[in-house]
């Protein structure tokens, strides 16, 4: 069925747009790389062809009438206006077709809902506007941000091949294993979608949704957030790297080590220059989307930091708002999103960048103690 469908689809496409390169004129869904996505594709093609056949019959009769029963052709109107048998038939036949459709659809759905016996569990949390991936059984996690440069988005630079579909840290999963995703969100509803997997599920704040996938072919797969989640909804892609198992294990070991190193950095004595350098980087990934790279913000939703009382006056208030957020606004609590080092670096950076020359700095240790006091 599927092969026929694909061939027919390609043929249809070829007939409609002979002169154009097909690369940019994709007409149809792709079958994807998982069992689920293949089943969905085959359902999609079946229902599409059923619709095409019904369409050809119904519109065929209609076009015949338009062609043959025109007044200008001298057509005299008939006077019939009901026929019980015909009316019963065209109620029952569609019903039967629907039942035939519902059977495979039900089977696929049952399979999609079976999240038991997973081998890897990953918690996916949606934030405005990035994804957090936590490897539940491995004790590490990280954020995945859009990595397309601002200059490409604002047309100052040529757009790259994976424009808007590239991130700094992709999700990494092993091939051939059942991976379960536990989805939630930190602020508003997001939706996590990888078309090639046939996986889309809403990430809802306060609730946990489950879904799963098993990818057999190594590769990089790209998707996007599909639930409107605010201003940068179009700028929070999903990138998944499926790698062979050994490679995956090595990657996990390395990640765990890096997480441990990061924890130790908290104890190090930091200089102002080091904090400023790290702070600028952390600011660009975590803060600049709202408060802007130059600290000018986008009032009233996103206040300016440049010259603001928070960033230039009471240090304790500044730490509090960054760590705990501000209820009822878009300002998130970054206490659990950023490491102590990054928190200290960002706060130090904000107090000294863009002419906020307070000369004050806060160390990772101080942040660590502050969080423990709470």
């Amino acid at each position, binding site marked *: 069925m599927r092969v026929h469908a694909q061939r027919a689809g390609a043929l249809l496409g070829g007939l409609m747009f002979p002169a154009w390169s097909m690369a940019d004129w*994709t007409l149809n869904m792709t079958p994807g790389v998982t069992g689920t996505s293949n089943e*969905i594709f085959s359902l999609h093609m079946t229902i599409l062809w059923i*619709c095409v056949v019904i369409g050809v019959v119904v519109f065929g009769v209609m076009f015949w009438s338009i062609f043959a029963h025109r*007044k200008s052709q001298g057509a005299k109107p*008939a006077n*019939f206006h009901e026929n019980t048998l015909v009316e019963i038939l065209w109620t029952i036949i569609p019903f039967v077709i629907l039942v035939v459709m519902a059977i495979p659809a039900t089977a696929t*759905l049952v399979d999609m809902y079976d999240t038991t016996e997973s081998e890897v569990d990953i918690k996916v949390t949606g934030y405005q506007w990035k994804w957090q991936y936590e490897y539940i059984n491995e004790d590490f996690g990280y954020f995945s941000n859009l990595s397309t440069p601002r200059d490409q988005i604002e047309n100052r630079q040529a757009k790259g091949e*994976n424009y808007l579909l590239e991130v700094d840290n992709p999700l990494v999963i092993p091939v051939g294993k059942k991976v379960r995703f536990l989805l939630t969100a930190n602020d508003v509803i997001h939706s996590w979608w990888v078309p090639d997997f046939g996986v889309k599920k809403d990430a809802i704040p306060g609730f946990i949704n489950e879904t799963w996938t098993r990818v057999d072919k190594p590769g990089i797969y790209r998707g996007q957030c599909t639930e409107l989640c605010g201003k940068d909804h179009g700028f929070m892609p999903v990138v998944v790297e499926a790698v062979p198992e050994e490679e995956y294990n090595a990657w996990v070991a390395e990640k765990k080590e890096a997480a441990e190193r990061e924890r130790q950095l908290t104890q190090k004595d930091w200089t102002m220059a080091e904090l400023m350098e790290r702070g600028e980087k952390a600011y660009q990934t975590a803060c600049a989307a709202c408060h802007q790279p130059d600290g000018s913000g986008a009032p009233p939703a996103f206040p300016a930091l440049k010259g603001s009382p928070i960033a230039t006056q009471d240090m304790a208030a500044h730490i509090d708002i960054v760590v705990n957020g501000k209820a009822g606004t878009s300002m998130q609590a970054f206490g659990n999103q950023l490491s102590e080092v990054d928190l200290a670096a960002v706060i130090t950076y904000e107090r000294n960048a863009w002419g906020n020359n307070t000369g004050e700095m806060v160390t990772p240790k101080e942040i660590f103690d502050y969080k423990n006091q709470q």
Partner: protein
Amino acid sequence: MAVTGVFMSAVADTHAQDHHHGPAKGISRWLLTTNHKDIGTMYLIFSFAMFLLGGTMAMVIRAELFQPGLQIVQPEFFNQMTTMHGLIMVFGAVMPAFVGLANWMIPLMIGAPDMALPRMNNWSFWLLPCAFLILVSTLFMEGGAPNFGWTFYAPLSTTYGPPSTTFFIFAVHIMGISSIMGAINVIATILNLRAPGMTLMKMPLFVWTWLITAFLLIAVMPVLAGVVTMMLMDINFGTSFFDASGGGDPVLFQHVFWFFGHPEVYIMILPAFGAVSHIIPAFSRKPLFGYASMVYAVGAIALLSFVVWAHHMFTVGIPIVGQLFFMYATMLIAVPTGVKVFNWVATMFRGSLTFEAPMLFAVAFVILFTIGGFSGLMLAIAPADFQYHDTYFVVAHFHYVLVPGAIFGIFASAYFWLPKWTGHMYDETLAKTHFWLSFIGMNLAFFPMHFLGLAGMPRRIPDYALQFADFNMVSSVGAFMFGATQLLFLLIVIKCIKGGKKAAAQPWDGAEGLEWTVPSPAPYHTFATPPEVK
């Protein structure tokens, strides 16, 4: 008996006096009118103005999406445009246009002198400009207009909404009151003021579809009012209906919203079903095929519309049993909808067809609405919906049922009844040009969206990956073409009001119904004495 006789003659006397009353002069005619024709006209003018405003916003959207990258507007404003476009088109353009048609045509079709509740009629119209003034004014407020989509999902619209959200809620309340009053009026008119002899199963289909639509409105507009009130409480009074940290549930919002929202989409299409069921027989010169099954099909669609709401929510994590129920129920809608399409085609079959503008729009309605129905059936298949959901495939689907569905239905009705309203024939050549440009533009704009969605483009994004560039450009070109063409409609209507060939009482040789028994233009007061229906 004698008492009744005296009473009757008193009524007759006042009626006799009424005959000498023309419309009042100046602005007070429009502000204070209780005449169904004046109010219908105002509804139609208002809805067309909103159509142009919402359309302008669509042009901004399509201009931004013409190429990848951010060129014209920033994402914040882009989201305001998609939100306001949807709200204005649904509540400002499509719904008031059908109320306008109902006001004009229902009394004429059932042989009633006016709507049953004329003062309330005036009030329900004048609430609308107030509501939209409030809604549109949010564009100029600090923080901008609503930016959370026309479906305003919480908590994006509550905790994270702009300050103007409270004004939006107030505007929705006023629109809701207006719609409910309009619906009460339609029901009261149809059930009480039908000409003697017009039994329910002799009512014209436009009247039938509007009766059912009015019941849907009364059932679901209070639900909409409820959900926005819960938002109001969450935003301003510290409740947590939709906030999990206070014991609420964001998904509750979606259930309540779509319990309103799904019947709402039928509210926007059923009256068009009715109008098309007059136009196709008229230009086929043959009675409508399967009148009774048409009525039952509309009833079935209306009933089913209450038990399918969660098909908008297949990805929110509904338990599998719920998922299956909503999938099966949604698929069932294809049966009565199919019956209607088959009936229209059977009406055309072996007729004697001509293709004036109303017929062109009506035939395009049947074909393109059916395409929207096909994609609707595809979306109903829950597993497949996991791929389609919130992509451009959905955008293509609902624009196919709303633009060539609702809006072509309205254009078809307008051309069909313009001679009755103005007393002049419209310019047929211009009207046909309007049709063909709209038809081509609309298909160019919306058909490629199917491909974009299937290729993986999410909806409501201001910028997109490079593989979506070509079809987006085609779509934008089509949208500009469709948008510009609508100015031609304005020209045609103005031309028709000002003059043109005099229209006979019965300008279409195949049309049937009481509205064609009164002169064209329809006098200010009609059916002071009810006609007899056999």
